[in-house]
């Protein structure tokens, strides 16, 4: 909120934001140059992580309720779209939203009991949500159980299919980021931040803390569900072990903490930098090494930069000047 005030101050140059539309145009136009599939997928996964991390941050960053269950909502979205498209033949653009709705319903169902827990207890039960959901989908014939589900592709070439969902994911990530930014600067955001700072004081301020947490949880789950739906189309295949991979939950958390979970810019930076790094390390060095590096990074970030890289660098600048 401090940032917000500075930003709205008269002396803040808006020119600073001019590069944003330029970057967006470049990203939108990127498929036109016919890039290798590797880069298209690389960028697609960057957008996906931006959407996931920003949506995770609504609850995890602003209220401090660190969830490891985000992957369950993401997968819920992916599976919902697959099922609705394959079994009922509904258009992919409608089913991605439906995926969000089902993820939000799941969040509403588990949110009431789980959000009463605090700290590590909340985190552990959210992790269990992801594990239990994975087991359910692994054993549920209707959704393909352990063989997974293939998507029916759109009646266009596989390349065009990829490009369409690349663009869709870019829009989804952009919309989520803008909405999260808006929440951060709204009354809703102020209430969420008060919960993080001191939940008892927040209650005494007249904040209906269970309701606000629930809203943040459901909204975050909805976004994650939409992202999951689009992801499914791009990959054209969902499988419980891949889609429900707990590592993704950890990655989301790390990205948010890395950039700094107190503002919308932190998850954005974290998702971009770390998902690029992750894909490159996995591709060129190996998945095992990447996991070790990530584990180390998480420890380093939490110990030395508890407020994230952005605040850390800002702090370094301030102390140099002073």
């Amino acid at each position, binding site marked *: 909120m401090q940032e917000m005030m500075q930003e709205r101050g008269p002396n803040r140059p808006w020119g600073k934001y001019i590069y944003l539309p330029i970057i967006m145009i470049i990203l939108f136009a990127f498929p036109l140059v016919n890039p290798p599939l590797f880069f298209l997928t690389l960028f697609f996964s960057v957008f996906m992580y931006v959407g996931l991390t920003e949506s995770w941050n609504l609850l995890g960053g602003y209220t401090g309720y660190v969830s490891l269950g985000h992957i369950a909502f993401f997968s819920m979205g992916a599976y919902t779209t697959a099922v609705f498209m394959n079994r009922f033949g509904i258009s992919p653009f409608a089913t991605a939203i439906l995926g969000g709705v089902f993820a939000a319903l799941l969040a509403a169902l588990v949110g009431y009991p789980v959000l009463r827990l605090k700290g590590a207890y909340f985190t552990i039960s959210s992790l269990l949500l992801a594990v239990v959901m994975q087991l359910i989908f692994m054993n549920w014939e209707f959704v393909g159980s352990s063989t997974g589900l293939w998507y029916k592709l759109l009646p266009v070439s596989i390349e065009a299919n990829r490009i369409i969902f690349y663009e869709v994911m870019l829009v989804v990530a952009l919309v989520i980021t803008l909405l999260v930014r808006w929440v951060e600067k709204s*009354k809703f955001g102020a209430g969420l931040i008060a919960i993080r700072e001191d939940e008892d004081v927040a209650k005494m301020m*007249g904040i209906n803390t269970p309701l606000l947490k629930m809203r943040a949880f459901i909204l975050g789950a909805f976004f994650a569900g939409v992202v999951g739906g689009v992801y499914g189309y791009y990959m054209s295949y969902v499988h419980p072990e891949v889609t429900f991979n707990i590592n993704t939950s950890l990655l989301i958390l790390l990205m948010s903490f890395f950039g700094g979970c107190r503002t919308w810019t932190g998850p954005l930076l974290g998702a971009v930098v770390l998902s690029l790094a992750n894909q490159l390390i996995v591709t060129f060095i190996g998945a095992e090494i990447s996991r070790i590096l990530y584990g180390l990074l998480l420890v380093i970030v939490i110990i030395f930069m508890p407020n994230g890289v952005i605040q850390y660098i800002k702090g370094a600048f301030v102390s140099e000047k002073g």
Partner: protein
Amino acid sequence: MLEGVRVSKRFGGLKALTDFDFLVEKGQIVGLIGPNGSGKTTLFNVITGFYPSDSGKVLFKGKEITRCKPYEVSKLGISRTFQIVRPLLGLSVIDNITTAVLYGRDNIGSMAKGRGRALDLLKFVRLDVKKDVPAQSLVAAERKRLELARALAAKPEFLLLDETFSGLNDTEIADAIKLIFKIRDELNITIFLIEHVMKAVMGTCEKIFVMQYGVKLAEGKPEEVSKNPAVIEAYLGKKKHA
């Protein structure tokens, strides 16, 4: 205005409050004193809904609030400060108050309007010069004023103050006493306060409840209470006879 009837609360085998009756009339400043651990803060926690009471009831303006949740109590017009001041440390001074204003009884939706009202409140407690400072860099006396401003931000009709004077020096206590009267007289807020600083209690309260082991020991005007043998015994121990 605020009334408790046989309020009781126990934590396992410990009786923190036993059949405690109290009444605070509109416009009064009433004190609650007692040795450490006698149940004063527990009573405040029961009133504000942080602890459910085991039996008895609490009435505010004639309406029962015993089962209300903290945010509902706040919406009905009761605010409190905490014994150990708890500003939202990560936020600036004005953001602390703005959030409280937005979610207060006027339920303001616009951030700009909320910030305007927050600034007025900071002027009221004379903390406006520090408005952009992070709350964690305030000294104790300033934190107390921030806590007061935050409690006032909800536009309460009734204020519970938990040891607002502790840890202040003499000048600061004198200032705080003036502020308490200003809150009652200018904002028409009734005040119920827990206090150990006797100078502040004697200087502000027209009625005092004395509590020991969760039981009411005495009740009355400050001068009466301070002469009550049971009260003197509770604080100083029994005189040994030779």
